[in-house]
């Protein structure tokens, strides 16, 4: 018997430890003695009863490391065979944008004046309808993405998209830079809009250096005005803050600004601080940031009282898995894949191409099909994406996060190593997870006590 290789252990503040076994799905709170035993069984002793419990829960195992690895792979294969794909649709009305943000990842793609027209929209909804006729599971919210979807000249076509979507029972969500949002307010009804994501990268002088118009002028004032409008309309607003080495030291002023604006008092408001990920190695070294760094800086700069904000997020569904365990939802919801881009995501671009990942739209290498003049799929690419699991990634097979992460982002893996079969996980993700694990646990515990409703924007860290 030996200690399993698949234990995530975190120290709780009250001399206890939190254990999660990442292939049995066991979640336990143990005392110091048991925690120390797990850490070093040769130097510590525990009673027989505890040992039996630890064995039953998977922490102590008679499997060899190789047998444990094999067991994990069996679970992945099972998940892969049983999971039913849920389709998620995104429409990109145009790749054009009215801004030239300093870190835009769409710089290299073709962004001429092409926008979709009514015929193309009809074609898109014909395809969406056929997906549902085929008895597929469909996520009933369509995402609008760009470029900038809410350019003033797009108004008519956006209105047309919304009307058809509504008739078919769809709701919408949009990622917009927020600059011209006021011109779209009449279309944004809370009943049909599940959410709007707007980005603000700092207080005025910081934001305006990063997210500027083509003529070089800033966008802060317009965006703030439009955030106020959206919040007053009861539409869920996700304020995204992109952080890299150029603005992280200033984000505390943005936090102060958000508090002063009283945005946090709106139940439809949430904020997400996200590190900017750079593909180029030079830029990554110079400007890059990670969720782990972000988390550490938050604690250093602001203190723990600001942890209610969504900072330093774990980039795989660890929190939902733990949350489901808390809510008594049976087996841990392990995953075989990292992301919907591998299964289920269908993005319609204005050139008649189909993609599955927002990050790679417009890059032909990642195209999964075409819908103009007729619908055709690039089956080889779909199969590669669909079948990429930790089973094929040797470095992931031994990883204790394998069933939580599913091999990481396929695009990041390719960006980093020019291979799809390398891990695509974020730097320091395990360190971040161990730091955040007790916080997630304590929050859920508190929630259970209060028997409060599950509220999205307070659940995430």
């Amino acid at each position, binding site marked *: 018997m030996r200690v399993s290789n698949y234990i995530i252990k975190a120290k709780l503040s009250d001399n206890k430890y939190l254990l999660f076994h990442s292939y049995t799905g066991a979640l336990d709170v143990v005392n110091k003695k048991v925690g120390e035993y797990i850490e070093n069984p040769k130097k510590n002793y525990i009673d027989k009863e*505890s040992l039996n419990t630890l064995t039953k829960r998977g922490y102590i195992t008679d499997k060899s490391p190789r047998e444990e690895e094999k067991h994990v792979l069996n679970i992945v294969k099972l998940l892969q065979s049983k999971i039913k794909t849920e389709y998620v649709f995104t429409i990109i009305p145009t790749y054009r944008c009215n801004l030239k943000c300093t870190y835009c990842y769409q710089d290299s793609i073709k962004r001429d004046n092409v926008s979709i027209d009514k015929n193309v929209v009809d074609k898109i909804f014909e395809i969406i309808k056929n997906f549902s006729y085929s008895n597929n599971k469909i*996520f009933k919210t369509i995402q609008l993405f760009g470029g900038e979807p809410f350019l003033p000249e797009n108004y008519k076509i956006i209105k047309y998209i919304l009307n058809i979507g509504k008739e078919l029972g769809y709701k919408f969500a949009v990622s917009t830079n927020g600059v011209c949002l006021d011109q779209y307010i009449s279309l944004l009804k809370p009943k049909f809009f599940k959410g709007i994501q707007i980005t603000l990268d700092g207080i005025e002088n910081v934001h305006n250096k990063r997210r500027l118009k083509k003529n070089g002028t800033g966008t802060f004032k317009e965006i703030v005005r439009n955030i106020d409008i959206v919040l007053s309309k009861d539409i869920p607003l996700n304020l995204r803050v992109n952080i890299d080495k150029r603005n992280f030291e200033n984000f505390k002023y943005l936090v102060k600004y958000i508090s002063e604006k009283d945005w946090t008092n709106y139940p439809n408001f949430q904020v997400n601080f996200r590190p900017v990920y750079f593909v180029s190695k030079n830029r990554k070294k110079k400007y890059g940031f990670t969720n782990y760094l972000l988390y550490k800086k938050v604690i250093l700069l602001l203190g723990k009282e600001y942890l209610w904000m969504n900072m330093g997020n774990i980039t795989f569904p660890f929190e939902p898995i733990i949350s489901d365990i808390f809510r008594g939802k049976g087996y*841990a919801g392990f995953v075989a894949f990292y992301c919907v881009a591998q299964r289920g995501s269908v993005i319609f671009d204005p050139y008649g191409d189909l993609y599955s990942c927002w990050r790679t739209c417009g890059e032909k290498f990642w195209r999964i099909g075409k819908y103009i003049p007729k619908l055709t799929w690039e089956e080889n690419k779909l199969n590669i994406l669909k079948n990429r699991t930790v089973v094929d990634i040797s470095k992931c097979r031994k990883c204790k996060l394998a069933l939580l992460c599913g091999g990481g982002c396929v695009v990041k893996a390719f960006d980093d190593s020019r291979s799809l079969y390398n891990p695509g996980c974020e730097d320091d993700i395990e360190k971040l997870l161990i730091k955040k694990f007790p916080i997630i646990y304590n929050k859920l515990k508190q929630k259970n006590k209060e028997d409060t409703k599950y509220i999205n924007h307070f659940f995430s860290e």
Partner: protein
Amino acid sequence: MKKKKIEKPKKENKIKSINEKLWDDFTIEELESREEFNSPNILIEGGPGGCCVYKCWTVGVVFCGAAM
């Protein structure tokens, strides 16, 4: 004389398990035949869902690193 009541030491809860259902040693065939396995609540269908908006509006977790 009143006897002094001796308090028994509280039994320490060494391991407090939060959940019961585990992906334990049963075979894949056994697992497949379990009724709970086919319940929609057990598995996250369609993979975890990677993109920001998708997760934001469903479970409130942001995944994607794409900067918008």
